[in-house]
């Protein structure tokens, strides 16, 4: 019973892209909403440019800190290839949000493998609820491409139907004063971006 009511958010990207902050912001908001929450993070070796994943699960009672394959309600991918890598975690009717960012992994840089150029198009064509967003570009317009993770928080907060004031409060609490303006703007733009999808 409680099993049905658990919501699973999978956030994937490349080490260094700021996925941890995104999952922590979302987690803080759902705690405020009174849910039981578990978040799983990746620290250590993979953070050096490897494939990273963080997982947020919430509901009346959450047991496992990690999401089962085929059980994610939302996958938020900071990078296209990573969206594809973690796709098997998505529920058949789950939502896939893909940031239009390409980061070549080592085998591609060295020419041993090819980057599937149109991977985002293929993903969108096979996943009914999916979309591509350009968070990095929008973040740059807000003042810093490094705020891309907060643009994505904005998009995700719409997909999850979260109260914007609560998310803003979490952002204020978790980010240093000097980058707040840029990030609040980025959050707002992310929310608006969802309308255009």
């Amino acid at each position: 019973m409680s099993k049905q009511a658990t919501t699973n958010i999978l956030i994937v990207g490349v080490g260094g892209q700021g996925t941890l902050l995104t999952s922590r912001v979302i987690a803080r908001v759902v705690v405020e909403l009174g849910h039981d929450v578990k978040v799983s993070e990746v620290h250590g070796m993979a953070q050096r440019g490897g494939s990273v994943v963080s997982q947020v699960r919430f509901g009346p009672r959450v047991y496992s800190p990690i999401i089962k394959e085929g059980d994610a309600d939302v996958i938020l991918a900071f990078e296209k290839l990573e969206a594809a890598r973690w796709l098997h975690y998505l529920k058949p009717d789950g939502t896939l949000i893909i940031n239009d960012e390409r980061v070549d992994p080592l085998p591609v840089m060295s020419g041993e493998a090819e980057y599937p150029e149109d991977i985002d198009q293929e993903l969108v064509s096979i996943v009914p609820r999916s979309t591509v967003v350009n968070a990095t570009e929008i973040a740059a317009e807000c003042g810093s491409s490094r705020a891309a993770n907060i643009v994505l928080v904005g998009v995700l907060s719409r997909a999850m139907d979260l109260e914007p004031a609560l998310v803003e409060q979490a952002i204020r609490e978790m980010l240093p004063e000097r980058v707040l303006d840029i990030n609040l703007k980025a959050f707002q733009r992310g929310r608006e971006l969802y309308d255009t999808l």
Partner: protein
Amino acid sequence: MKKLMIGNEAIARGAYEAGAKVATAYPGTPSTEILEIFSRYEGVYAEWAPNEKVALEVGCGASMGGARTLVAMKHVGVNVAADPLFTFSYTGVNGGMVLVSADDPGMFSSQNEQDNRGYGRFAKLLVLEPSDSQEARDFVKEAFELSERFNTPVMLRITTRLAHSQSLVEEGERVDIPLKPYEKNPAKYVMLPGFARLRHVEVEKRMAALAEYVENSSMNRIEWGDRKVGIITSGIPYQYVKEVMSEASVLKLGTVNPLPENLIREFAAGVDKLIVVEELEPVIEEQVKSWGIDVQGKDILPCISEFTPELLEEKLLGQAVEEVFTLSTPIPPRPPLFCPGCPHRGVFYVLKRMRLTVCGDIGCYTLGALNPLAAMDSCICMGASIGTALGIEKARGEEFARKTVAVIGDSTFVHSGITGLIDVVYNQGTSTVIILDNGTTAMTGHQEHPATGRTLSGNDTIRLDLEQVCRAVGVNRVRTVDPLNLEELRTAVEEELAVGEPSVIIARRPCALIPQADLEKKTYYVDTDKCKGCKLCVKIGCTGIYWEEEEKLAYINPNLCVGCGLCPQVCKLDAILAREA
């Protein structure tokens, strides 16, 4: 209100609330955050020790001195600290002592996946295993009480998923525990054979008393459900069991050494079929079997890697995950790699070009074993590089040593490289040792160490001078170079390899991710008129450089380039130029 915490924060919190005054550790994923967080509390002392053995020894002293003491390390750290651990088990404590062992099933960031519950039986310790952050905080508090009550160090065994998963924790106030009086007591603390023989008797008495205690501990509980299957489990796997088999009867163990034999017998008698769900080794299963109880475990579940909920669904319920979406193209893997501006890149570039045998070690630089630089021959444990270089020389002769180097990070050198270097000098080896001094313990998230000249709390202290240490142990040839100056580095390596005596090259440049890096305010770009697409720059494996297949040209991403200046040195056509930022 309850607060979200990773397991490691909850452990720090629990220790703080329990009145712990001293905490020591050497960093190691997934344990590192425990000390980082604990050190921020008021009224406590916390330190990075040079290695785990010293950390535990400082902990032993603090406990003898009457303070409640927390010691934390990753699983392999306990191997380093095993010597004091086994004997501290004999002496017992004064102030309570909790040793956190952070195991890494699945090897997210480790060189092996040993199961440290084994140490519980081997060293005769009480071992507790929490299943979420709340329990982590509660069990630590309980552990301090039990440590003092049963006069034993207590091991808190956690795994990566516990350490790095956040869940809700109810906090409490810190209790003020006064220092216990210090009394000279050689029969308890001087482990001469005559005294130790008597202490061993006490250890056996203690284990008997603990075996009785765990039968009624609230950390162990039966959750009766469907009696057709009964699951014995602990730690994070408990959560997976609840997730996928919510109806099953479960015996949840919080004490994994010693085991509550009577409770297990009662549970076994109440179910038709008994299964132990434990990651890694069959520690519980084998003991249950030894009591003549019919039980399953490793015949169904693997002893390799961590579990997942879907693994339990498949192995216990016979339900395999169905594939919903299929992609037409393969997904290239994304291994971790050196950051843009990493000083290690220069070293491995040179070593690869020189085709040397490279006895490696553990740290960020172990990535030098992977493509495209792939220059490392071995990596066993922290500090092993120097000993293995000497061993290869003794096996294959001095000629071989002329083409062999040991490569070791600064933190690792201080941890356990110095004794290896002493061996080289003492036994007249001729090894060339390269110390990669990036001014930090980068791999585990940039911790201070003795050679950075700063403590865990960021205070200045006496800096361990690496050059002086090397000279002091008897190395006459010690030189310092910039690892991003390829010419200088190569010359140094060639010259030091050529001489028939031990030498040390200190390759010094701060990690690109720490403030001391003081990066140049410029980036590089490729002059596409000059670039002929030879790919030499691409082969240094910098994420800032990418290859445009259609144009057959290399490009530099200005957002990623930190201006380290390595790629212009490898370009034979001078096609990589600087641009002031």
